[in-house]
C-alpha cells in the first residue's frame, strides 16, 4: 500500500495508494486556504471557550462570557419594553374617550391593539375580526352592546356573561319554545313576523299573528319596532346582520332555545393599557361609533353605567335560562 513515489510527469509525490492503477498526487494545499483553515480552528477554540458549546452529561458548558439565547431574548424584550415605555405611560394616562384627540397616540394604540388582537382574540373573532356564526363580526356597524371606544373598553374589561364579574355584560333570552312559553305554531308566527322586519319575508297572516306575540313577549328587550336595545345586548332584528343566522330555521331555533355567547372578562388577564389598545383597534376596524352625546336619548345609558344587572334586564322574564 504505502508505495509513495515521485510522479515523473509532475515531479510531485503521490499519496501512496492505488486504485485500479489510479494514483493520487499529494499536492500541497494552497497557502491561503491552509491559513484560513488554521484561522478557523483558532476561532473555533476561542468561540467554544467564550460561548456555550460542549454538551456535557447534564448540561452544556456555559462559556466564559455567560451568554445564553434566553438571556439575549430577555435583553431584547426589555429593550423593546423600554422603547415603548413612554407610549405605554401616555396610554395609561389618557382616558379612552380622549384618545382620538391625539392622533399619534391613537395610531400607536391601534398598532398595539392589532398585535394583542392576534394573540388573544383571533381564536373566536378570526384573524380579520370578521367573526363567524355566533361570534360577532367586529368590522361592521352593528354592535350588540355599543360601539364607541368607552363601551368597547367596558365590554372587553368585564366580558360577556362572565359569572363572578359584577359588571359583566349579561342578559338571557328566555327559551320561548323549549320552556313552553310559546307553542311551536306561535314560534313559527313570531319567526314570520321577525323575518318581515328586515324584508326577508313578505307580510302574511302568520306574520300578523306573530306581531301580537312579538309585542307581548319580545318588544321589552328588542323594542317595539324590533330595533334591539343595547342595554340588554338585544340585537336589532330589522337589519341585514344575523349573529346566529338569518334563515327561518335559524330564527325558529333561536326563539325556541336561544344561544348565548360569552366572552372572557379580559380585565383580569390583560393590562388596562392592552385593553385600551384593543378597544382602539376594534374601534378602528371601520364600524367604530362616536361616543354618545350627553344629551342623547334616554335609551342610551351613560357609558359608565352600562353594566346592567340581569334582574332589570329580564323583568318579564321567565325562568333564567342556563347561560352558555
Amino acid at each position, binding site marked *: 500500500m504505502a508505495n509513495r513515489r*515521485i510522479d*515523473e*510527469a*509532475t*515531479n*510531485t509525490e503521490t499519496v501512496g495508494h492505488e486504485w485500479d492503477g489510479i494514483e493520487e498526487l499529494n*499536492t*500541497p494545499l*494552497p*497557502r491561503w486556504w491552509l491559513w484560513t483553515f488554521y484561522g478557523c480552528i483558532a476561532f473555533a477554540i476561542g468561540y467554544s471557550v467564550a460561548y456555550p458549546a460542549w454538551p456535557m452529561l447534564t448540561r452544556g458548558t456555559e462559556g466564559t462570557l455567560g451568554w445564553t439565547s434566553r438571556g439575549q431574548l430577555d435583553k431584547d424584550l426589555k429593550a423593546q419594553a423600554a422603547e415603548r415605555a413612554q407610549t405605554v405611560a401616555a396610554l395609561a394616562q389618557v382616558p379612552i374617550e380622549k384618545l382620538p384627540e391625539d392622533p399619534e397616540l391613537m395610531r400607536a394604540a391601534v398598532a398595539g391593539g392589532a398585535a394583542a388582537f392576534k394573540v388573544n382574540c383571533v381564536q373566536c373573532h*378570526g*384573524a*380579520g*375580526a*370578521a367573526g363567524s356564526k355566533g361570534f360577532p*363580526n367586529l*368590522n*361592521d*356597524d*352593528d354592535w350588540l352592546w355599543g360601539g364607541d371606544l368607552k363601551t368597547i373598553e367596558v365590554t372587553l374589561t368585564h366580558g360577556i356573561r362572565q359569572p363572578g364579574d359584577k359588571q359583566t355584560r349579561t342578559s338571557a333570552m328566555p327559551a320561548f319554545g323549549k320552556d313552553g312559553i310559546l307553542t311551536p305554531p306561535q314560534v313559527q308566527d313570531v319567526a314570520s313576523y321577525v323575518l318581515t322586519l328586515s324584508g326577508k319575508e313578505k307580510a302574511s297572516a302568520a306574520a300578523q299573528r306573530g306581531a301580537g306575540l312579538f309585542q307581548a313577549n319580545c318588544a321589552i328587550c328588542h323594542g317595539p319596532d324590533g330595533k334591539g336595545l343595547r342595554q340588554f345586548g338585544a340585537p*336589532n332584528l330589522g*337589519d*341585514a*346582520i344575523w349573529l346566529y343566522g338569518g334563515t327561518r330555521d335559524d330564527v325558529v331555533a333561536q326563539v325556541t332555545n336561544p344561544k348565548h355567547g360569552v366572552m372572557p372578562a379580559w380585565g383580569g388577564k390583560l393590562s388596562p393599557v392592552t385593553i385600551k389598545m384593543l378597544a382602539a383597534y376594534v374601534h*378602528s376596524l*371601520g364600524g367604530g361609533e362616536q361616543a354618545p352625546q350627553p344629551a342623547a336619548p334616554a335609551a342610551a345609558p351613560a357609558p359608565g353605567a352600562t353594566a346592567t344587572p340581569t334582574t332589570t334586564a329580564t323583568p318579564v322574564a321567565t325562568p333564567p335560562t342556563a347561560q352558555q
Partner: protein
Amino acid sequence: MNNPEKIIPVEDQPLSLYAKREPVFNRRIDGKFRRLKWAIMIVCLAVYWITPWIRWDRGPYAPNQAVLIDLAHRRFYMFGIEIWPQEFYFVAGLLIMAGIGLFLVTSAVGRAWCGYACPQTVWTDLFQHIDRLIDGDRNARFRLYKAPWGPAKIARRLLKWSIYLAISFATGGAWIFYFADAPTLQHEFWTGTAAPVAYATTFVLTMTTFVLGGFMREQVCIYMCPWPRIQTAMLDEKSLLVTYKDWRGEPRGSLKKAEKNPGQFGDCIDCNQCVAVCPTGIDIREGPQIGCITCALCIDACDRVMKETGRPRGLIDYATLEDSEREKAGEPPTRHLKLIWRPRTILYFCVWGGIGLALLFMLGTRVHTDLTVAKDRNPPYILMSDGSVRNAYTLRLRNMEGRPRVMEVSIEGLPGAVMWSEDTGRDNAARTLRRTVAADETQSMRAYVVVPAGTPSQEFRFRLQSLDEQRETDTTEAKIDTPGGE
C-alpha cells in the same frame, strides 16, 4: 505509456505549484502615453474625490448633494435625476451601459480600461509614484529591497507605508460621502458621532486600498480580476494590442554587436527598457499576454530609445494582429482611427446608445404620481346592517415631486359605490377622496368602499389625479367582493 524514453527527466528543483511574486520596480518614464495616463489619473481621482462635495439645489424638501445614494430614505440622486427604489431599472440600465461601454472600448481600443482607467491601475500607479518619491527609482528601490533590515530601511518603509495608509484612508473615507450629506457626515465623522457603518466602511475600504494598491498590485490583474479573462474572449484580430514588432526587432542585439555586424541584427537593442518601465513586470517581447494591461509605457520607453539610437519609432506600438501580419508582409498598416469603424464597434455603440436613449426617454416621460391598491382579503367583504357591502383597501399615493401636492382618488365604474376614510368618516362617504401628499413621499391610506345591497362582485378602477397644473393621473385596477358572487 511506460516507454522509459518518454519519461520526463526529473529536474533538480521539485516543480512547485506556488510561484513567489517577483516585486516590480518600474522605472520612471516620460512620453505621450505617460502624459495621457497622468491626465486620466488626475481626472479619475478628481471625479472620485470631488463628486460628493458638489451641491445641487433641489428645493427645501430634498437633499442638496449632487450625487447621493440615500439608502436610509431609499433615493438615488444624480444631479437633476432622482430615482426611487421601484425605478431601480434606471440604475440597472446604467450598469448595463457601463458593461456594454466596456465591450465597446475593448473592441475599439483593446484593454484601454485596464491600462488607464481601472481603479486598480490608477491607485497602483499612484502608489508606485509614492515608491519612487520615497525610495528612488528602479535601481534604488531594488537595492533597498535587497538590503538587510536596518534602521534606515525600517524608517523608509514606515514612512512609505504611512503615506500609503494616508492615501488609502482618503480613498476609503471618500466613499462614505456618496451615501450621506458630505459636510454633515464629515463633521460627524471627526467628532465620533457618525453611524458605526461609516467607520466600518471606511476601515474596510482603507485596508483594501492599502493591500490591493500597496502590495498586491499587478497580482490583482493577473490572478484575481475576471475582466482580463473575459477580454481574452472579446479581443479579435482587429483589436489594438501593445505589440512588439518582432519582425522588425529580431534578432535583437546590443548597439555594439549591431555596429560590428551590420545587417545581421534587428532594431531591438535589447536594452530592457520596456521591461524596466512595465508596471506589471512583464516582457512585452514575449508577445501578447494576460499580464499586459496595455498601459503603453513600454511604447514610451522604446520610442525614446529608438530616437536616441536614430531608428524609427514604433518598434513597440499599438497594432492589431491583422496589421501585424500585413506589416510583416511589407504592407502599410491600417490607420487606427479607421479601425474603430467596423461592424462590431458600431453594433456595440448602437446598443449602448440605444439603451441610453431609452433611459433618457423613460426619464423624460415618467409620471411623478403613482397609485397602488391592496385589497383586504380577510375578510373579503363586510355586510353592513343596512344590507350594503363594504370592502376595505389600502391605497398608497405616491408623490415624486419635490413639493407637497393635493391628490384626489376617485372610483371609476362601480355604480352606486361611495368611499370613506378614517379622516372623512362614514357620514361623508363620496365618490372621491382628497389628500395632501407630502413632498417626495408615499402616503398610505385606508379606503372603505361601500356598494348598495345586491351589487355583484366586479372589477373597477381607482384613479389618482394630482390637483395641480400638471394634472397627472394614474389608474389602478381593483376588485370588489360581495356576497352576491360574480
